[in-house]
């Protein structure tokens, strides 16, 4: 039940993508997303799609899992696709009352659908192949320059780590409390919306109480180990920018350069 919700979706593995540093993955992912939206014609879009798909293949995680990540936004894809279909100019393909479909509209819809789908799937590559700890560590190191502006980078990263760390704990707790209340005859599966919201009270109150208890215990435990923020804190395992990261960066950058060249060489369809 609650167990089945995939939130911290990390799937351990030993693929090339898994071995890349979190920092590299985050930066390359952001640039990749930018370039997905920079494609102006079908050839550059094809290049970026093929590149994204081969990255997905390289994670050695079943493609089905990526399709599953699309399910959440399927509705958005359909709606935006439909709206785009009716916007745009070009040769009229079909007309009825106020609605017209033009070639421009079809291209728009096609681009939007492919872009959103790719966006979701390449983001999944990051969350599927990077453990939450590595992810926040990567973010912390990327945000380090912001300390000049007095941004509490370490504290933000620590909060994220703790939040991520406690998601499974809280899910398990929710599961347990739900079971305990169900054993006392709580009915959470039927009734109208108001009845269902009311049925959540017996779950939410114990959950809040235990979250506060956990937070206070954790704070105490951290203080007992002399935690006093990020200053002067060192890491046991420092991941360094390695050959694989360099390789990944070079390949990605040449693909991105390819997109720019193809954009210039071929006429834009949008």
């Amino acid at each position, binding site marked *: 039940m609650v*167990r*089945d919700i995939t939130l911290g979706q990390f*799937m*351990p593995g030993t693929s090339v993508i898994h071995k890349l540093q979190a920092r590299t993955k985050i930066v390359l992912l952001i640039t990749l997303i930018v370039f997905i939206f920079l494609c102006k014609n079908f050839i550059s879009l094809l290049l970026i799609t093929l590149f994204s798909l081969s990255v997905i293949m390289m994670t050695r995680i079943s493609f089905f899992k990526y399709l599953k990540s699309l399910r959440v936004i399927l509705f958005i894809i359909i709606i935006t696709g439909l709206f785009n279909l009716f916007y745009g100019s070009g040769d009229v393909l079909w007309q009825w009352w106020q609605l017209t479909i033009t070639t421009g509209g079809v291209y728009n819809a096609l681009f939007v659908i492919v872009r959103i789908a790719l966006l979701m799937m390449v983001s999944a590559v990051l969350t599927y192949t990077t453990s939450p700890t590595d992810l926040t560590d990567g973010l912390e190191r990327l945000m380090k320059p912001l300390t000049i502006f007095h941004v509490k980078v370490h504290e933000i990263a620590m909060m994220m780590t703790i939040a991520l760390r406690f998601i499974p704990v809280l899910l398990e*707790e929710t599961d*347990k*409390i739900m*079971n*305990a*209340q*169900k*054993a*006392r*005859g*709580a*009915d959470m599966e039927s009734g109208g919306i108001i009845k269902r919201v009311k049925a959540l*009270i*017996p779950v939410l*109150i*114990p959950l809040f*109480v*235990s979250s506060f208890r956990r937070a206070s215990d954790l704070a105490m435990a951290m203080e007992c180990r002399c935690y006093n923020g990020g200053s002067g804190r060192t890491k046991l395992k420092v991941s360094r920018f390695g050959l694989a990261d360099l390789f990944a960066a070079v390949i990605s950058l040449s693909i991105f350069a390819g997109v720019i060249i193809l954009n210039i060489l071929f006429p834009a369809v949008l």
Partner: protein
Amino acid sequence: MSVIRAENISFVYSPGTAFEKTALDDVSFEIEEGEFVGIIGHTGSGKSTLVQLVNGLLRPTKGRIFLEDKDIWEKPKKIRNVRFRVGMVFQYPEYQLFEETVYKDISFGPRNMGLEEEEIDKRVRKAAAFTGLRDELLNVSPFDLSGGEKRRAAIAGVIAMDPDVLILDEPTAGLDPLGREVLLSQINDYHKIRKNTVMLVSHSMEDIASIADRILVMAKGRKYMLDSTANVFSNGDELEKLGLRVPQITKIMMMLRKNGMNVDPAVLTIDQGFNEILKCLSGK
């Protein structure tokens, strides 16, 4: 007639994912009406999964469970009625308290059963009395109670449903020795007066040895044995191989016997052991 019968039940957590885990593997057993059955096993042996299956909170991946000869999953929509008849007290049940007053919290179960207000009141007071909660505690917030009192209030919340089968999962975990003893004797008293069926999960042999009629030993998701308490503990060596401790007094008797003293090792309580040793010494 057996009140609960399990036929070849298996249970797998998160089937089809990387986290797939078989918690129970082909377990069958029968429990008679009015029995007090102890369930013991090492951590991860499947005890907790087993009792959640009996109560209908989990649905077996394979196999069937019968409550008085009726498959509990025959009508999945009516599973709530099974849960009213098979009451379940979870580990650390005090974390399920949520109402403004202890009284309201205990009445949550009976109210879900759709009982009359008068009947609810009767049951709440009876359940509170059984678990030793004083009347004046009924009107305070459950969050103001002490740890032991919270535990009692939570157990009362299940007893108030007056289930035919009462399952308790590690009810004494985290209590001090006196609290354990008192709680266990209250459960036993309740069992004797109500004449209901009780299944008590524990990994403490001392807890179970003195009150259970029969013991179900679980190991690695399988039924290791189901036999009378004395018979189970007479296999002390085998239990220790499973990583389970026999009660200390039983162990002492086993060692005495090994060293040539003619005592019966199937002794479960200190009193019995005391008498057994006296008998043996005076016999010489």
